[in-house]
C-alpha cells in the first residue's frame, strides 16, 4: 500500500514523548471512571502540563472581558462592561485591519501591540532601550524558537549544528532540535546547589562537542522548567561572557519571568544583564529572548501566543527572519491578551480592584503551594526538593529502591515513568517523569505543576503522600 515507508529521518528520529504512555493510560482511566469502574479516587488530577487553567486556576476577568468585547462588539452597547474594558477593546479593535479580530495582521504582529510590548520590556529592564522592529509575535513562544533555530541550524552542514541545552530542559525544545536535524549538547545544572549553572560544566559541554558537532548557540531557561530555579544576575553575566568568548548565539527562554516567588530571588532579563555589562559586549552579543501569554498569572496557554525579542542581530539576517515569520501569522486574540499582559489595569482604573484581587489570590495560592510542596516532599527521606524560587513546577528528586528500578526495567519502563504510572493508576494523579526532561544518569525525578488552587494542591499532596509511603514499602 504505502509509498511512505520512508519519511523524513529527522521526524523518525524524534523521541516519542515519555509522557505518551501516561497520557494514553490517563484517557483510559477517565473512560473507566465515566463507565463507573470503582477506584480509590473519583477524578484524575492532571498536573503534568504547565497549564494553570487545566489545573483549576481561573482566567483573569479583565482579559476575558476584553476578548469577549473584541469578539462581539455589540457587548459594548449596554452597561454590563466596565468603561476601561470598553476603552481597551475599542482601542485594540482600532488596531485591527477592518476593525475586526478576524483579519490577518502584519508579519511581526499588530504594530501598536509591538509598541506596547517594547515599552513593557523597557520598563522591566530599567530603561534599557527596546525597539519594536526587533520583536516578532508568534503562535506560541516555541514557534518563535523553532524559527530562530531554523535560521541557526544548517542541517546540510558537516559537522552538524549543535545547540547547548541545560539538563533538565523543557522537552519540546529538545524535540524541536531533533526535527531540525541539530545536535543537542547537554550541560548539567548542579541540583545540589539549587540547579546552579557552573561555568566549568559549560566548558566541559563545549569541549565534548569537539569532533561531534559545531555548537553555534546556547539555550538557557530562566526561571527554570522543569526545575524551579531563578538564575542570579551574576550567573547570567557569566553565561553572557562565556557566549561572547566562545562565539555562541544566546537563546534565553524567559517565559516564566512573571512567576518568581523565592524570597531572595529576582528576575533579571538576559537583555538587562547584557546592557549592564556594557560595551563592547552589549553591542555585539547576539541574543533572542522569548516570552508568552501562556504562563505567568494569565496562563492563557490555549490562545497560543508568544514573542521573541532579537538583540544585536545582523540586519541582513533579520530580513530573512522576517520572511520566515511572514508565512504564518499569529492569532489576533492572543495578541490582545498580550497587550493586557504588558499593560494591565492600573490603580484608579475601574477594573483594577477585581484585577488586583484575582492576581493577589493567584500569587498567594502559589506561595502557599510552594510552602506546602517543599514541606511535604522534604518530609520524606527518599524524596527531596530544591528550594522553589520561580517557574510553575516542582521537580523533586526520587530516591527509588533497587527493587523498584528492577521492576521498572522488567516492564520496559524508565524507573520514574514506572513511578508516575503507578501514581496515576493508584492515586489518580498525573505527574510527568524526569526522563522526559533529562537528568543525571542514575537519578530520578518527577515534575508537576504547582500553579493550582490551594485545595487542589492539598489533595494532590495527600494522595501523593499516601501513595509514596505505600510504594516505598512495597519495594523496600
Amino acid at each position: 500500500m504505502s509509498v511512505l515507508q520512508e519519511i523524513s529521518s529527522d521526524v523518525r528520529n524524534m523521541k516519542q514523548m515519555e509522557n505518551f504512555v501516561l497520557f494514553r493510560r490517563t484517557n483510559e482511566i477517565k473512560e473507566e471512571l465515566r463507565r463507573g469502574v470503582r477506584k480509590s479516587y473519583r477524578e484524575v488530577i492532571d498536573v503534568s502540563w504547565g497549564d494553570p487553567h487545566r489545573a483549576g486556576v481561573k482566567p483573569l476577568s479583565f482579559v476575558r472581558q476584553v476578548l469577549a468585547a473584541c469578539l462581539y462588539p455589540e457587548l459594548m452597547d449596554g452597561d454590563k462592561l466596565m468603561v476601561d474594558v470598553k476603552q481597551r477593546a475599542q482601542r485594540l479593535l482600532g488596531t485591527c485591519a477592518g476593525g475586526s479580530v478576524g483579519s490577518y495582521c502584519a508579519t511581526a504582529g499588530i504594530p501598536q501591540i509591538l509598541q506596547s510590548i517594547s515599552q513593557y520590556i523597557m520598563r522591566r529592564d530599567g530603561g534599557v532601550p527596546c525597539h519594536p522592529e526587533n520583536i516578532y509575535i508568534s503562535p506560541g513562544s516555541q514557534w518563535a524558537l523553532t524559527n530562530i533555530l531554523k535560521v541557526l541550524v544548517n542541517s546540510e552542514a558537516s559537522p552538524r549544528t549543535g545547540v547547548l541545552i541545560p539538563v533538565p530542559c523543557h522537552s519540546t525544545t529538545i524535540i524541536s532540535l531533533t526535527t531540525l536535524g541539530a545536535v543537542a549538547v547537554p550541560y548539567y545544572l548542579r541540583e545540589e546547589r539549587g540547579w546552579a549553572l557552573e561555568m566549568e560544566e559549560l566548558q566541559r559541554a563545549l569541549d565534548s562537542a569537539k569532533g561531534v558537532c559545531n555548537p553555534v548557540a546556547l539555550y538557557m531557561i530562566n526561571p527554570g522548567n522543569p526545575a524551579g530555579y531563578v538564575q542570579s544576575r551574576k550567573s547570567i553575566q557569566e553565561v553572557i561572557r562565556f557566549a561572547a568568548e566562545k562565539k555562541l548565539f544566546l537563546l534565553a527562554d524567559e517565559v516564566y519571568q512573571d512567576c518568581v516567588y523565592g524570597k531572595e530571588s529576582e528576575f533579571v532579563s538576559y537583555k538587562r544583564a547584557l546592557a549592564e555589562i556594557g560595551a563592547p559586549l552589549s553591542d555585539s552579543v547576539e541574543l533572542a529572548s522569548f516570552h508568552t501569554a501562556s504562563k505567568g498569572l494569565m496562563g492563557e496557554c490555549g490562545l497560543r501566543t508568544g514573542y521573541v525579542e532579537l538583540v544585536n542581530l545582523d540586519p541582513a539576517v533579520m530580513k530573512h527572519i522576517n520572511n520566515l515569520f511572514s508565512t504564518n501569522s499569529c492569532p489576533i486574540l492572543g495578541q490582545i491578551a498580550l497587550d493586557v499582559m504588558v499593560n494591565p489595569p492600573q490603580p484608579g482604573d475601574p477594573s483594577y480592584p477585581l484585577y488586583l484581587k484575582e492576581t493577589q489570590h493567584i500569587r498567594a495560592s502559589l506561595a502557599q503551594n510552594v510552602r506546602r510542596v517543599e514541606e511535604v516532599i522534604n518530609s520524606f527521606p527518599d524524596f527531596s526538593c530544591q528550594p522553589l524560587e520561580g517557574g510553575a513546577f516542582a521537580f523533586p528528586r526520587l530516591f527509588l529502591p533497587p527493587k523498584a528500578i528492577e521492576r521498572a526495567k522488567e516492564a520496559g519502563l524508565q524507573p520514574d515513568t514506572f513511578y508516575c504510572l503507578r501514581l496515576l493508576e493508584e492515586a489518580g494523579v498525573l505527574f510527568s517523569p524526569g526522563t522526559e526532561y533529562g537528568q543525571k544518569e542514575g537519578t530520578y525525578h518527577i515534575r508537576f505543576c504547582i500553579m493550582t488552587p490551594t485545595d487542589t494542591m492539598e489533595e494532590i499532596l495527600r494522595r501523593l503522600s499516601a501513595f509514596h509511603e505505600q510504594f516505598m514499602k512495597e519495594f523496600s
Partner: protein
Amino acid sequence: MSQEAVNGVPCRGKVLTVENMNPNVKRVEYAVRGPIVQRAVQIEKELREGVKKPFTEVIKANIGDAQAMGQRPITFFRQVLALCSYPELLEDNKFPEDAKQRARRILDACGGHSIGAYSASQGIECIRQDVARYIEKRDGGISSSPDNIYLSTGASDAIVTILKLLVCGEGRDRTGVMISIPQYPLYSAALADLAAVQINYYLDEDNCWSLNVAELKRALNEAKQHCKPRVLCIINPGNPTGQVQSRQCIEDVIRFAKEEHLFLMADEVYQDNVYAEGCKFHSFKKVLFEMGPEYSSTVEMASFHSTSKCYMGECGFRGGYMEVINMDPEVKAQLTKLVSVRLCPPVPGQALLDLVVNPPQPDEPSYTSFMKERTAVLAALAEKARLTEEIFNTVPGITCNPVQGAMYTFPRITLPPKAIDKAKAEGKVPDMFYCMKLLEEEGICLVPGSGFGQKDGTFHFRMTILPPTEKLKVVLQKIRDFHLRFTNEFS
C-alpha cells in the same frame, strides 16, 4: 546599546551571518507579504504623517483577507466565541439558546472549562468528531474517522507539517513535490525551507487555467532525472487562478497519482467559494471513493480546510484542519508525534472550526439570520468575481480568465518592450516594476505574478476581489486607467 545594527552598518564578528545561516532559509520568500507590501506599509505611514500623494489611502488587494476589506463576520460565530471567552455571559439573555448550547459543549471539552488551557495536540476530540461528521455529510455519506483528522494553526500549518513528514533523501533521491504554476507561494516557501525539490506543472491559461495530465506527465518525467517525485499538490478551487476543477479532471489527477505512486495534497480551503455557473466543488475524497476500492483503498491523500476563507473570512483565528486518507499506520504515528511539537492549535480557532462544521440547523433560533448572512457574503463575492472579469476584459492589454471560485483574479498583462527594458535596467522583474508603479501612482497594492510563478515571457498580477463592491469598481477603473497610461508611457 547601539543601534548601528538597525541602521544598516554591517557589524563585524557576528556569530550569525548571512554566510553561515541556514542556506534554505535564504531561499524562503512569500510574495503575498513581500517587498511590495512592505512599500505599501511605508506609504501608509507617509500618508499618516501628512505626505501628499495622488490618493488618500492604500487599498490592500494583495492578501485574501475578507474582513480587512470590510466583510462582516458571521454573528452566530462571534456570539459563541464571546460566550466561550467569558462564560459569565451564559447568564445574559441577549444570547440565543443555540449559541449558549454550543459554547457549553465546547467549554466542557476544554481543560478546566477554559479556552485558555492547552488541548490535545491533534485537537479537541469532540471537535474532530464534528469535523468528521461534516465531511461525511459533505461527501454524501463516505465515512470519515476523527482519528484521521488533525486540527491545525490555519491550513498552512498542516500543509507544512505534511511536507515536513514527507521530505527526505539525499541528492538524486531527494523528495520532489509537484506544484502548479501559478501557485500559492506558501508551497514554494515551505519547499525551499525543507530543501525539497519543487516540480512545476503548468496550468493552461488559454483554457481557463485547467490542469491536464499530459502536462503532469511531462513535468514528472523530467523531474525523475534529478529527484524522487513523491508528492502532488493541487489547489482547488485555485489560488491565484480561481479555476474550479471539473470532476473529470479530479479523476484524472487521482488516476495519475495512483499510477505514479504520489501522495496527493488537496488544498481545498476555498471549497465554499464557487461562483461560476456550471462549476461545482468536488472534494478529492468524494471522487476518490466514487472511483471504487481500487483507488479508494490505495491512494494516499491529505485534504486541507481552513476558517480563513469561504464565507467566514476569519483569518485572524488561525483555524484549520487536515484529513489524512489511507496513511500507513506507522507513518501516521510519526505524524502524531510531529504535531506534538506545536503543543496544540489555538483553542479559539478550534472552537470556531467547530461552529463552521456544526452551524445552526433549520430548527434552531439562529438559523434564519445565519443563512441570510452566509448567503449575502457568497452572493457579494460572486458578483465581485463577475464584475472583475467583465471590467478587466474591457482593457486592451489585460486578459482575464473567469473567476470561477476562490477570492482572486490573476489577469495577464501585456507589457510594452520599453517597459520591460526599463524594469530590467532598474533590476526589477517586469511585473514587479508594473505593480510598484501602480502602488506609487494609485495607492493600490497587488502582488506581481512573478511571486506565484508564470510561463516565461508572460506577466500577471494577483488582485483580490474582496474590497466592497463600490470600492472594487473604483479600483478596477483605476487599474484600467493606469494600464492605458502605462502602455502609452512606454510605447
